[in-house]
């Protein structure tokens, strides 16, 4: 039992420093508790032709504010996608410190105008280099509460004409939120590559007429059918790939037709799929045109490109097919012939589909091409694009959202049928009124449904397997980004989490310190004056018990 008066300092001399040496690092290692955590997706980042898209900055550690109350770059805007307008987005892009957008719970439930608005906003986001980090959060009820809270606080603070005292109280009692996204720096993926797959549907050698030798098969005119596979949109998610679905349906059907019919087609059919078209300026087709030995391209009848043949999000229940060309086709050319076939096949098999031609000249001054066929038109191949969209500026081309899947499926079936019929009529020089894809050749739902699951040319070898099943000379080539002057570049993305902490403003802490100070003062005085209290209690006891007291009260009588 130590009883020295300086035992306190003794302890410091002996044990405490060593204990602290061990305890302090251990304490510092105990990281503070994590708050509400949310999954977020970063906005897609990529470079095309030296232009940056998406934000280079990735980490956020800022005060979360609502759309209506942010004003400096030290605020991170937390809002719903449906509340964000293009104008707001432009301001945030230039001034705020970050943007976190919560996606709607169910895109199907939204109004037509809202859907339209979302796609326009999406296009706007994809059109600019952002300096602020942008994240998308899937719908989450907790995040919704937080968004409501910050919006509500703002309204309370600004809606009424309050006195300065009331505003002070509001600011002290207000709940602040601090948003943190721990994104590591984005590293450019030096191995960025775009896979391109192509294959040929050659005329069946056995069915060739005996007087033709097989070599002649190589000299037949070529019809090239291309589609691009959308692999990402405004964030890293897989959009609907109706183009590839239609293309694979065509591959399947025409291949079946080739292997059974006694008619030898007069054309070679080439199919080409590349990853990511519009957003990457159709790099895939460009690469293919560069590498191909041109033997296939010596005698091109026409190039058919598919682009957004079905709108993945649409307000219009009817569908339309537009044939986009760079120069108006002359009479008697194969394109104008095909256009007529397409028109009559549309009339015959689907009543409410309009087929129209749209002419748009190639603007070489533009950094980005409008349609895929322009890549081929520049090389003077007769080419056109089939699309459900009238304008190349339509925001539906890049949207990641999809609504009613039954509508998409139904339209895909219709589009496949119309194009297949028109193509078959063209190949076999048949009357447009004959219907080929009926009975055993009918394009059925179960045929095309699996193709919707395709996510990339390389994903699970799905596309490769399908091509190899029906086509010959299937090859996959890669367009690799040049190491010095890359045409395109992708960025590595990590899974990131958004943490939202409930915080109080600094003024609140000071306020609290003052309150605690008062409390401590009261406790201090209470302890100081405790002897007085004790004396009173003692007197009470003495009066009660009326016992003899020796009156020996120490001055330092203290109980507590």
């Amino acid at each position, binding site marked *: 039992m130590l009883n020295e008066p300086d035992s306190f300092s003794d302890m410091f001399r002996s044990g405490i420093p060593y204990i602290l040496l061990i305890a302090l690092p251990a304490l510092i290692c105990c*990281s503070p508790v994590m708050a509400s955590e949310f999954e977020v997706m970063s906005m897609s980042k990529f470079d095309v032709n030296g232009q940056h898209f998406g934000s280079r900055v990735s980490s956020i550690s800022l005060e979360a504010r609502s759309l209506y109350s942010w004003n400096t770059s030290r605020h991170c805007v937390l809002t719903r996608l449906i509340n964000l307008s293009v104008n707001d987005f432009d301001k945030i892009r230039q001034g705020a410190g970050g943007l976190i957008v919560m996606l709607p719970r169910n895109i199907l439930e939204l109004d037509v105008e809202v859907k339209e608005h979302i796609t326009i906003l999406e296009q706007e986001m994809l059109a600019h280099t952002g300096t602020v980090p942008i994240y998308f959060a899937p719908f989450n009820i907790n995040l919704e509460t937080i968004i409501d809270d910050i919006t509500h606080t703002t309204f309370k603070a600004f809606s009424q004409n309050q006195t300065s005292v009331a505003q002070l109280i509001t600011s002290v009692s207000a709940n602040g939120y601090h948003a943190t996204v721990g994104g590591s720096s984005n590293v450019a993926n030096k191995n960025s590559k775009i896979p391109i797959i192509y294959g040929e549907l050659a005329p069946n050698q056995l069915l060739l007429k005996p007087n033709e030798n097989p070599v002649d098969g190589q000299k037949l005119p070529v019809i090239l059918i291309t589609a691009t596979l959308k692999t990402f949109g405004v964030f890293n998610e897989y959009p609907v790939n109706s183009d590839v679905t239609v293309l694979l349906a065509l591959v399947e059907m025409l291949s079946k037709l080739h292997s059974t019919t006694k008619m030898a087609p007069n054309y070679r059919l080439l199919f080409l799929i590349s990853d990511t078209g519009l957003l990457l300026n159709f790099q895939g087709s460009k690469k293919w045109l560069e590498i191909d030995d041109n033997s296939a391209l010596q005698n091109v009848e026409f190039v058919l490109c598919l682009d957004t043949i079905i709108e993945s999000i649409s307000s219009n229940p009817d569908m339309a097919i537009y044939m986009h060309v760079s120069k108006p086709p002359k009479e008697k050319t194969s394109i104008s012939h095909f256009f007529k076939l397409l028109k009559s096949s549309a009339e015959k098999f689907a009543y409410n589909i309009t087929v129209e031609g749209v002419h748009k000249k190639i603007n070489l001054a533009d950094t980005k091409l409008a349609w895929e066929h322009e890549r081929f038109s520049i090389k003077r191949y007769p080419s056109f694009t089939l699309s459900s969209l009238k304008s190349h500026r339509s925001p539906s081309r890049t949207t990641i959202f999809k609504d009613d899947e039954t509508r998409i499926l139904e339209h895909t079936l219709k589009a496949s049928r119309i194009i297949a019929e028109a193509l078959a009529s063209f190949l076999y020089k048949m009357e447009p009124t004959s219907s080929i894809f009926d009975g055993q050749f009918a394009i059925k739902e179960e045929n095309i449904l699996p193709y919707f699951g395709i996510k990339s040319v390389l994903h699970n070898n799905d596309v490769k397997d399908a091509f190899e099943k029906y086509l010959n000379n299937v090859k996959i080539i890669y367009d690799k980004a040049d190491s010095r002057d890359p045409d395109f570049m992708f960025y590595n993305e990590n899974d990131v989490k958004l943490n939202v902490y409930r915080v109080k403003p600094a003024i609140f802490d000071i306020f609290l310190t003052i309150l605690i100070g008062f409390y401590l003062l009261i406790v201090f005085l209470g302890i100081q004056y405790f002897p007085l209290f004790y004396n009173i209690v003692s007197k009470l006891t003495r009066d009660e018990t009326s016992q003899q007291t020796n009156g020996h009260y120490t001055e330092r*009588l203290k109980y507590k």
Partner: protein
Amino acid sequence: MTLYHFGNCVALLMPYYFTYKYSGLSEYGAFWKCVQAGGIYIFTQLCKMLVLATFFYSDTSSTGNGEFNFFAEIFRCSVDIADLLGFALILSRIPGKGHSKLITAGLGWATAEVILSRGIMLWVGARGTEFSWIYILKCLESNVMLVQHISTATLIWLFTRHDLNKALKPLVSVLLAVTVFKGVWLEGLLHILTIGPWLTIAVKALVAAIIGFCTLHIYSGLAQQIGI
């Protein structure tokens, strides 16, 4: 929320220091005795844990979802009688004179409790970015616990005295029982009333004050009688 907030929470524990400094303990050099009292607290808690783990069915699922299980609480509080034994051990082992002996025991016990049961929570929680009132509430509650523990120490001391007025003996026993089974009746009452956390603290403070006053009343009588 920040280190500043942590500082605020720690500042709320200042009454412990005031008690030590201004009740004369510092002049007796009673620091080391307080540490010993804390050591006995740790020893008692370890024994309690051993007993709880050995003999009691720990139904964490029912206590986890905020339900108040009356019988489980009674069992748990019956183990808290070991706390009283711990206090008795401190009072018998640690020498001291008059009032300072009791304050040493109560303060040492309460300080050890605060450091062990609140320390990690405050360090990890209050320093974190997320704000919560719970840390301030817990610190305020510790102040109530300080009063509570000093009264308990006094009650134990009174209980062990033979020269206590016989008429007061049952009262002391009742107060001790009330203190030990506070976990049952007070928590149960608060649970039934479902009042807010701030009011809960206020009620606890009130109860501690009442028990403290009764104790003080009995103690002052005895203290005058034996002349300390």
